[in-house]
C-alpha cells in the first residue's frame, strides 16, 4: 500500500519505549520537588445540597497542616465571561464551580475544600475535620426525570435555549436544537417498512488506569508552574490562568507522561487548587486523586435516552429517519449531544431526516469527552435498528448498509456534505473478511455487525526541528503522547527528510518552549501535529538545499533532494554529510511550522462480533471480534491496530458491563475497579483488526486519525449478536447478565415480544 514510502507504514520501536518498560518514565504522579507538600480534596457527600457554612478552623489547626482553601480563595468569576478551554466555549463560572463548589454542591464527589500538609495522610485527616453545614436538596439523576416539570433545578440562572433562542424558562434543559433535512413526515409516509425503538445507555467512565494528578508551585516572582498528566498542556495553562484570573504568560505547564485519558484528561480539576495551596504556603503542592475521586469527581460520559425511527422501501432504500436524543451533561451544561446528533445517521444517505437534541443537567459528575463523544450512544440505537430493518426486509445486514452507505457528496442532516470518506470501503472489507462467513462453532452463539462514524478534528499544532551535526534531528512538539504519537509524528518528519525513524528524536516540551498546540484528542495528533512535523521537515529541507548550494557554490534552486540525498551539477551529499558541515555554512539549521489544518478526514469503523449467551445466566461471552477501520494512511500500523483494539474493548466494556450504579440519593455505589468492572484479559478473545486505507486527499500522507471511531460500533454489534444468539432485542446498556436474563424470561413468557 505505502510502497512509495520508506518510513510511513513501517513499525519501528517507539522512541519512549525503553523508559516505559524500565519504569524510568516520569508520569504526573511520579513528580516530586524539594519541599513538596501534599494536598487532599474534601468532596461532597451529597448529590445536591446548599452549602450553608464551612468551618475550616479545626483543619487549619491540625498539626502538619500548612494551608486550607475553599471556593472563597478563588477570584470571583465575572458573571457572563465565556472561555474556550479546548472543548468549546463555556461560562467561566461553570469551570470555577466544578473546581471548587461555591454556594451549592451539584453531585456527590463535588470538590468543596482542600488541605495541604506535610504528607497525604495528615492532609486527609485534617480535611475530615472541616465542618460543613449542608442543606440537602432533592436530586435528579436521569435526563427524563430532570426534564419533567417540577424536577429539582440545578442552576437557578440556567435559561433553556430553544431552537437557538434564549427563553425565560428556568430548566435543567440547557439546550434544545434540531437538524432538519427534507421532509421526514413525507418520507415516513412513503416508507413501506418502519423500525423504531427507545434506547437507554448508562453513564460510563473513560477508565484510564492513572488517576488525575497535579503539582503546582506559585513562585515568588508570581509565576505559576504546573506539572501534571494531561491531554493538553496549553488547555491546562489557559484554564489555570482563567480560573485564577492570571495572564496566560504567568502559567507554565510541564506535561509529564500521561497514563491514559480517552477524553477525560482534557478538563482541569486539580491544577488551580494545587496552585492556590502553593500560593498560601510558598511551597510546591502535589494532589493525587484516589480511584474513588476519579469515578465520583471526574468526567464520565453522558448517560443517554434516545428514540429513533427509520423508514425504508421494500428494496432496502432508507427514505426517512427521525431521532430524539437527550443526553445527561452531569452537573454543568455541555453533554455531547451535539456530536451525537451529527453522527446518529451520518453513515447513511437519507433524504428526509429530523433530529432533536437535548442537553440536560443532572446531579452527576460534569461529563467529559470519551472517545468519539456522543457517537457511541447514538450508534447503539441506529445500528440496532438497522439490524432489525435488515431482518424485516430479509436482507443481509451489510448489504442493507451498503445500499444506503454515505459517500463523497452525501449530505448529512446537520448540513455539510461529506468529502472523500471510506464508509463503503469499510463495509466491503467487513463483507469480505473471513470472519463474516466463518461458522459460529457452537450452540447459543450469534454474530452481529455494526458501523460507526467519527469526525476527527484539526486544531493548531506547532513543531520545530533542529539538525544535529551527526545527521540526526531533534523534533520538539507540544502534543502530549498518550499512545505512541511521538513516533507517529517523528515518522512523518523522517519520511520527508529521508531519515530513519530512529534518527528523528522527538521531545514533548512545556508550554514555554513550543508554539500553541491543541489537545491530544479528536484523533488529531498524528493528523495535525504530524502535518506540522511534515511542514517543519520541509522547512529543514529548504534550508539544507541552501547550505548545499553554499558549499558547492551553486544556485539554491539547482539543488534537488530525493530521499535525503542532495544533488547539484555532479555534487552529491547525504543529509548526514551535509549536517556535519552546516557549521561551515552559516550556523544551525532549525525548521519550524505552525499549522491549523483544514482537510480533516472523518473515519468510519466497523465491528463483527460473535458472542455466546449462556441461557442459564444471561452472561454474554465475546468469542470472536474483528475491528475494521479506515485509517486514511496508517503511519505506524501497530499503533493503528492498537487504537482499534483498545477502542473495541472499551466499547465491549460499555456494552456488556460498565455503568455508574447510582442509589436513590445520587451516590455511585460501585466506585472501585472491583465493582466497576472493566474488561480483563480473561474476558476477551484476541481482537482481530483490518486497516482500510482510503487516503485523506487533504493530508500530506493521507492521514485521517484513528483514535475514536473504533469505539462506536461494538455496543450495537454485540446487541445484534445477542439477538442472533438468544433471540432478544436489547434496548439498554449495559447488556449485563441480569438484563439479558430478564429479556430471555420476558420473551419466554410473552410470545409476541
Amino acid at each position: 500500500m505505502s510502497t512509495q514510502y520508506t518510513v510511513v507504514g513501517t513499525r519501528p520501536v517507539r522512541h519512549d519505549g525503553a523508559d516505559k518498560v524500565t519504569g524510568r518514565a516520569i508520569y504526573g504522579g511520579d513528580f516530586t520537588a524539594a519541599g513538596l507538600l501534599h494536598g487532599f480534596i474534601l468532596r461532597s457527600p451529597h448529590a445536591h445540597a446548599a452549602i450553608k457554612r464551612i468551618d475550616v478552623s479545626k483543619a487549619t489547626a491540625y498539626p502538619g497542616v500548612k494551608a486550607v482553601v475553599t471556593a472563597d480563595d478563588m477570584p470571583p468569576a465575572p458573571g457572563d465571561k465565556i472561555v474556550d478551554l479546548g472543548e468549546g466555549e463555556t461560562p467561566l463560572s461553570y469551570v470555577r464551580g466544578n473546581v471548587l463548589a461555591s454556594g451549592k454542591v451539584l453531585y456527590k464527589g463535588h470538590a468543596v475544600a482542600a488541605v495541604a500538609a506535610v504528607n497525604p495522610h495528615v492532609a486527609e485527616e485534617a480535611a475530615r475535620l472541616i465542618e460543613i453545614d449542608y442543606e440537602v436538596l432533592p436530586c435528579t439523576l436521569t435526563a427524563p426525570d430532570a426534564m419533567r416539570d417540577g424536577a429539582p433545578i440545578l442552576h437557578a440562572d440556567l435559561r433553556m435555549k430553544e431552537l437557538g433562542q434564549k427563553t425565560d424558562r428556568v430548566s435543567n434543559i440547557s439546550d434544545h436544537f434540531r437538524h432538519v433535512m427534507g421532509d421526514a413526515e413525507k418520507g415516513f409516509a412513503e416508507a413501506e417498512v418502519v423500525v423504531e425503538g427507545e434506547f437507554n445507555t448508562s453513564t460510563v467512565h473513560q477508565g484510564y488506569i492513572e488517576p488525575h494528578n497535579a503539582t503546582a508551585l506559585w513562585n515568588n516572582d508570581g509565576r505559576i508552574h504546573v506539572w501534571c498528566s494531561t491531554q493538553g498542556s496549553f488547555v491546562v495553562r489557559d484554564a489555570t490562568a482563567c480560573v485564577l484570573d492570571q495572564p496566560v504568560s504567568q502559567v507554565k505547564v510541564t506535561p509529564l507522561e500521561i497514563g491514559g485519558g480517552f477524553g477525560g484528561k482534557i478538563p482541569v480539576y486539580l491544577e488551580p487548587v494545587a496552585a492556590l495551596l502553593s500560593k498560601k504556603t510558598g511551597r510546591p503542592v502535589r494532589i493525587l486523586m484516589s480511584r474513588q475521586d476519579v469515578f465520583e469527581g471526574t468526567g464520565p460520559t453522558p448517560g443517554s435516552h434516545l428514540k429513533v425511527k427509520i423508514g425504508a422501501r421494500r428494496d432496502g432504500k432508507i427514505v426517512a429517519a427521525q431521532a430524539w436524543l437527550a443526553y445527561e451533561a452531569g452537573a454543568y451544561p455541555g453533554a455531547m449531544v451535539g456530536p451525537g446528533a451529527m453522527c446518529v445517521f451520518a453513515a447513511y444517505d437519507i433524504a428526509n431526516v429530523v433530529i432533536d437534541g437535548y442537553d440536560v443537567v443532572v446531579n452527576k459528575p460534569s461529563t467529559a469527552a470519551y472517545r468519539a463523544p456522543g457517537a457511541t450512544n447514538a450508534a447503539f440505537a441506529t445500528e440496532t435498528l438497522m439490524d432489525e430493518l435488515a431482518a424485516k426486509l430479509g436482507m443481509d445486514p451489510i448489504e442493507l448498509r451498503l445500499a444506503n452507505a454515505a459517500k463523497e457528496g452525501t449530505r448529512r442532516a446537520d448540513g455539510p456534505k461529506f468529502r472523500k470518506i471510506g464508509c463503503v470501503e469499510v463495509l466491503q472489507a467487513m463483507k469480505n473478511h473471513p470472519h463474516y462467513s466463518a461458522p459460529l462453532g457452537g450452540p447459543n452463539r450469534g454474530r452481529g455487525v455494526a458501523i460507526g462514524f467519527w469526525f476527527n478534528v484539526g486544531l493548531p499544532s506547532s513543531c520545530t526541528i533542529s539538525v544535529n551535526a551527526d545527521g540526526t534531528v531533534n523534533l520538539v512538539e507540544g502534543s502530549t503522547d498518550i499512545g505512541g504519537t511521538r513516533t507517529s509524528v517523528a515518522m512523518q518528519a523522517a519520511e520527508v527528510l529521508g531519515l530513519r525513524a530512529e534518527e528523528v528524536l522527538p521531545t514533548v516540551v512545556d508550554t514555554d518552549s513550543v508554539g500553541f498546540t491543541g489537545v491530544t484528542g479528536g484523533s488529531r495528533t498524528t493528523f495535525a501535529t504530524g502535518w506540522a512535523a511534515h511542514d517543519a521537515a520541509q522547512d529543514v529541507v529548504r534550508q539544507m538545499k541552501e547550505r548545499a548550494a553554499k558549499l558547492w557554490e551553486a544556485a539554491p534552486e539547482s539543488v534537488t533532494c530525493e530521499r535525503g540525498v542532495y544533488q547539484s551539477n555532479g555534487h552529491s551529499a547525504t543529509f548526514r554529510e551535509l549536517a556535519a558541515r552546516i557549521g561551515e555554512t552559516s550556523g544551525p539549521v532549525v525548521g519550524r511550522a505552525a499549522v491549523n489544518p483544514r482537510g480533516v478526514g472523518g473515519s468510519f469503523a466497523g465491528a463483527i462480533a460473535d458472542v455466546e449467551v449462556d441461557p442459564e445466566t444471561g452472561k454474554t461471552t465475546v468469542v470472536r471480534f474483528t475491528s475494521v477501520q479506515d485509517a486514511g494512511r496508517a503511519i505506524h500500523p501497530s499503533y493503528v491496530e492498537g487504537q482499534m483494539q483498545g477502542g473495541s474493548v472499551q466499547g465491549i466494556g460499555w456494552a456488556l458491563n460498565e455503568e455508574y450504579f447510582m442509589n436513590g440519593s445520587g451516590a455511585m455505589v460501585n466506585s472501585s475497579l472491583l465493582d466497576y468492572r472493566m474488561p480483563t484479559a480473561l474476558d476477551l478473545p484476541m481482537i482481530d483488526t483490518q486497516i482500510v486505507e482510503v487516503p485523506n486527499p487533504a493530508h500530506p500522507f493521507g492521514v485521517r486519525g484513528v483514535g475514536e471511531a473504533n469505539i462506536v460500533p461494538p455496543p450495537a454489534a454485540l446487541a445484534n449478536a445477542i439477538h442472533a444468539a438468544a433471540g432478544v432485542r436489547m434496548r439498554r446498556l449495559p447488556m449485563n447478565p441480569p438484563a439479558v436474563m430478564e429479556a430471555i424470561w420476558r420473551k419466554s413468557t410473552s410470545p409476541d415480544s
Partner: protein
Amino acid sequence: MAQVYIPGLLRELTGGRETVEAEGSTVRQVVESLGRVYPGLAERLVEQGRLRPNISVAVDGEISSIGLLEEVAAGSEVHFITAIKGGRCARRS
C-alpha cells in the same frame, strides 16, 4: 456567489428558504451581504463582531476554527451550524 444553507431555526428570516446565495470572499462579508437582504439575520449569527458562541460555520463541509475570517470561494457551500464547537456544545445561559 456562495451557496448559504440557513439552519431550520433561522429560516423564518429568509421566508422559509433553506438555501440562499450571498456575495463575499470571507464569512464576514457573506454575513454582511445576507444581513442586507434578510434583515435581522446577521444579528442572529454575529455578536460583538464574532460568531455567536452557539453558532459554528462550515465552509465546503468543514467546520472552521477561524469563523468569520474563513475564506469563501465562488461556489462555496457555507453552513451555519448550531450548538457545536470543537466537538462539544457551545453554551451560554
